[in-house]
């Protein structure tokens, strides 16, 4: 890829998804584009980029944006957010809510995060009788959502973060694939979602997981998305960011000693 091509591509991805592409990581971009080029029938990445820049093919454009903006994930990633869910957040919400508790997993990629939440809810169900969870997952990438919807995972994927006890409890093995229990799969509703344009009008949610997503945005986009999230989060709801993400926003207050966990700042008037 030429210097101009990489910068044109980075600009396209930023405008469509908000994601800032590290233009120095040419190898990452090329690896991800190689798969898109192959599927779309191009012999080189250069051909794909020229087609992209000269014709306005929306399907091709989005498959490129999705491929570059997508993130890696794993079951129970970072562990502590799920421990906080189990020990603090679910008990608090179970005590306060009579209706269903709504949880949103944003940037859910291939589904490991919302499914981990659904397994956790199933495990903890006995401790909170009557509590009903509605778990929604959203991601920009159609391909990731298709995989999430299939509920099929490789041996490699089920060995990352998923305890063996939960693997045998919630998965079945068919040929080489590990198949998620349909009961857990159906406990999660997945939909395509662009954080730049599709937040308003949803909710209100009691918990929003938005981990390792905002840090790929530029500061003004990050601020705008956070304020919109504040608009769809219940006033006593929780926002879970990535474990190493700290975000300064007037809309949220960090929770002391809880990495990545934020609550609404009551002084902030959300522009929902």
């Amino acid at each position, binding site marked *: 890829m030429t210097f101009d091509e990489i910068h044109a591509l980075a600009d396209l991805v930023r405008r469509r998804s908000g994601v800032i592409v590290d233009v120095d990581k040419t190898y990452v971009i090329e690896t991800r584009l190689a798969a898109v080029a192959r599927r779309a029938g191009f012999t080189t990445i250069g051909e794909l980029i020229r087609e992209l820049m000269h014709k306005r093919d929306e399907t091709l454009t989005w498959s490129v944006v999705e491929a570059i903006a997508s993130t890696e994930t794993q079951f129970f990633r970072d562990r502590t957010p799920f421990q906080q869910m189990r020990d603090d957040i679910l008990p608090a919400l179970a005590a306060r809510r009579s209706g269903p508790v709504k949880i949103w997993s944003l940037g859910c990629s291939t589904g490991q995060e919302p499914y981990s939440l659904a397994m956790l809810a199933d495990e903890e169900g006995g401790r909170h009788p009557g509590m009903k969870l509605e778990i929604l997952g959203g991601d920009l990438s159609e391909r990731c959502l298709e995989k999430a919807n299939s509920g099929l995972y490789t041996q490699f994927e089920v060995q990352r973060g998923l305890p063996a006890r939960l693997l045998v409890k919630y998965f079945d*093995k068919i040929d080489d694939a590990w198949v998620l229990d349909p009961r857990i799969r159906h406990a999660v509703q997945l939909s395509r979602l662009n954080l730049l344009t599709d937040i308003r009008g949803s909710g209100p949610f009691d918990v929003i997981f938005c981990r390792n997503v905002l840090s790929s945005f530029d500061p003004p986009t990050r601020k705008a998305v956070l304020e919109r999230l504040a608009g769809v989060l219940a006033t006593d709801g929780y926002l879970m960011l990535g474990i190493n993400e700290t975000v300064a926003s007037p809309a949220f207050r960090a929770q002391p000693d809880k990495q990545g966990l934020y609550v609404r700042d009551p002084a902030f008037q959300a522009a929902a």
Partner: protein
Amino acid sequence: MPEEIRPVKTCLVVDDSRVVRKVARRILEELDFEVAEASDGMEALAWCRTDMPRAILLDWNMPVLNGIEFLQQLRREPGGDKPVVVFCSVENDPDHIGQALEHGASEYIMKPFDSDIIESKFVEAGLL
């Protein structure tokens, strides 16, 4: 303040493949374990009778005494309830995994493995 001295953690690697033992040793030493090796369940049992390790990385299919037979015998030894056992086997079906957990294994690694998988399973098992 003197630096805190941490007790030495030992991990016994039980596998009939020398290559697997070597790979596992390298990974476990990176994770600050002192590593001992045994090539079958009988050898492992002899090792445990002299010095119970903190952790055991255990293959399933081995000559003389296989992994699950070793685990059953280990749990009957004095102090044999202490070691944290993580299976590491090519057997990769729910039945084998369920059986290993029932016999008191804490975690199960399906081969092939890499350092990330060992590390994350050892975290799950409370060893790291």
